[in-house]
């Protein structure tokens, strides 16, 4: 089976976030880039499905030229092919992104074969829009299951499970389909140095994105780092001697004892 996983290049914000002077974006001069965690799992799932069932895993991103770095990460994780929809430096909204991907699917399928599954992260780490997968599915007339943490494919049917309080919802859906995954569905593999070197030599296919945003507008005005209360914590003590003070706080301040 052929599986397409769609990923996004995002700043690695494990460190403190600093905004550019115009408050339009994160200052990435001292930050590396990565792909969203859910999407790393989407690649791993695509590769595992292709390994288990035969076929190929394809990774695609809409982003700047530099996003080939994330595509090569996907190739190093043993994806077979990669496509860049080069968007320039601007952020694309969820509708334009979904439409841009939908617009190139026919072209990609002509070149690489029909996709049985299109995998997305449930939401990107930076935007958190939670809608690209659904909008793409609706554009293509495909069924869509979102937010899943388990996926099994057998005989043209995907069994997808989604976590809810106290259990899991189970969906069975005919392929082809769009599925958005959450972190925890698998453990993404670490690419070996040899795989990374091989990935550098693989060709990345390129397409011009053409997505329309549709009627209505969502326009970013600026970003803001929320104010946080950085006043130091009340130190209850050091080491084991602090235990009575903790109990006192739990009893009198938090009132849970």
């Amino acid at each position: 089976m052929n599986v397409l996983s769609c990923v996004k290049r995002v700043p690695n914000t494990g460190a403190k976030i600093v905004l550019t002077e115009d408050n339009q974006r994160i200052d990435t001069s001292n930050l590396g880039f990565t792909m969203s965690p859910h999407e790393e799992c989407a690649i791993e799932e695509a590769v595992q499905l292709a390994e288990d069932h035969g076929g190929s895993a394809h990774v695609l991103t809409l982003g700047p030229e530099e996003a080939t770095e994330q595509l090569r990460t996907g190739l190093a994780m043993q994806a077979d092919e990669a496509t860049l929809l080069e968007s320039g430096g601007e952020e694309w909204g969820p509708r334009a992104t979904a439409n841009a991907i939908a617009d190139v699917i026919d072209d990609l399928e002509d070149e690489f074969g029909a996709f049985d599954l299109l995998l997305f992260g449930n939401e990107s780490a930076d935007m958190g829009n939670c809608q690209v997968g659904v909008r793409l599915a609706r554009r293509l007339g495909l069924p869509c299951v979102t937010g899943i943490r388990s996926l099994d494919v057998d005989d043209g049917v995907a069994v997808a499970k989604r976590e809810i309080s106290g259990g899991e919802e189970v969906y069975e859906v005919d392929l082809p389909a769009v599925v958005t995954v959450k972190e925890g569905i698998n453990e993404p593999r670490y690419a070996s140095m040899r795989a990374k070197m091989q990935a550098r030599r693989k060709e990345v296919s390129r397409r011009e994105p053409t997505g329309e945003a549709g009627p209505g507008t969502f326009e970013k005005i600026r970003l803001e780092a929320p104010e946080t209360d950085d006043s130091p914590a009340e130190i209850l003590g050091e080491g084991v001697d602090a235990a009575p003070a903790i109990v006192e706080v739990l009893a009198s301040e938090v009132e849970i004892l």
Partner: protein
Amino acid sequence: MILSFVEHESGVPDELSLESLTMAREIATGTGEPLEAAVLGAEGGALADELGPYGVEEVHHVVHDRLDGEGYAPQAWGESIAQLAADLDAGTVTGPSTDRGHEVLAHAGATLDAPMATNCTAVDVDNGAYELERNRWGGSLIEHARLEGEPTLVTAAEHEYPVEEADAAVEPAVSEFSPSLPDTAFAVQLDRVETSDEEGIALGEARVVVGGGRGVGNPDDYDQLETLADLLDGTVGASRAAVNEGWRPHDDQIGQTGAKISPDIYIACGISGAIQHMVGCKGAENILAINTDPEAAIIQKADYAVIGDLHDVVPALNEELEERS
């Protein structure tokens, strides 16, 4: 009018839906429009009494033989909301920031080809357009944006709006709406629910959460944290670092891509306080950090701190609590 999608369990509205009603009511007050609600599923019609206190003037129960009798079907639900919104000429559709809320509104947005802003924390109306604030990076950043469309879709960020009754309760009218749904709208439908065998309190619902990070050092030492959680009728969570080490299952992960918690107290043991972790526990009333490093980021975020090795402090705390009980 403002149409709010309300999730419910057997006629009892979901808490995040009630939070989103607070946002919807603020929008309705700002625009001078009425606030109405859309409910689906069997027993949805019973919600009128529940929603009156929140200022809902009319409850629209979406009725369809395949919606009431069979499992949840995301696209069918979304198309139903879209048809209802079009029928009512709703200017805005709101909903909760649950998986289902986002999914249903995304389908409604796709049907209507309308823009949708998720995880909103503030919404103001300015000349017919919305000036809004929404969480980016799970809440590490706030985006100020302008949303314009006919209609627009908006979800309220989790735990950013309080569940708040309206100044004056109303007695909502109840009406039924029958959408026209093709078979293709049911291509995805809930087949079954598998209940978990796991006992204990869910992270999102716990009043006390004991979190363990890289400082725990190995999977066995979570036993001390489990004991502490048991003594406080709480549950154990973990940082992404601990989950990545394989010490705890992903279900325990607190953070941007894990659980969002809102306990009375979060006891963070051996956790450095990375941004992605803190957005998962910012709903906690109190944070107590136990950490060997007085310079750790979490000490700046916590209300209380103990400087020390959790392997010493937690057993001593457990002993103190046992003596007291």
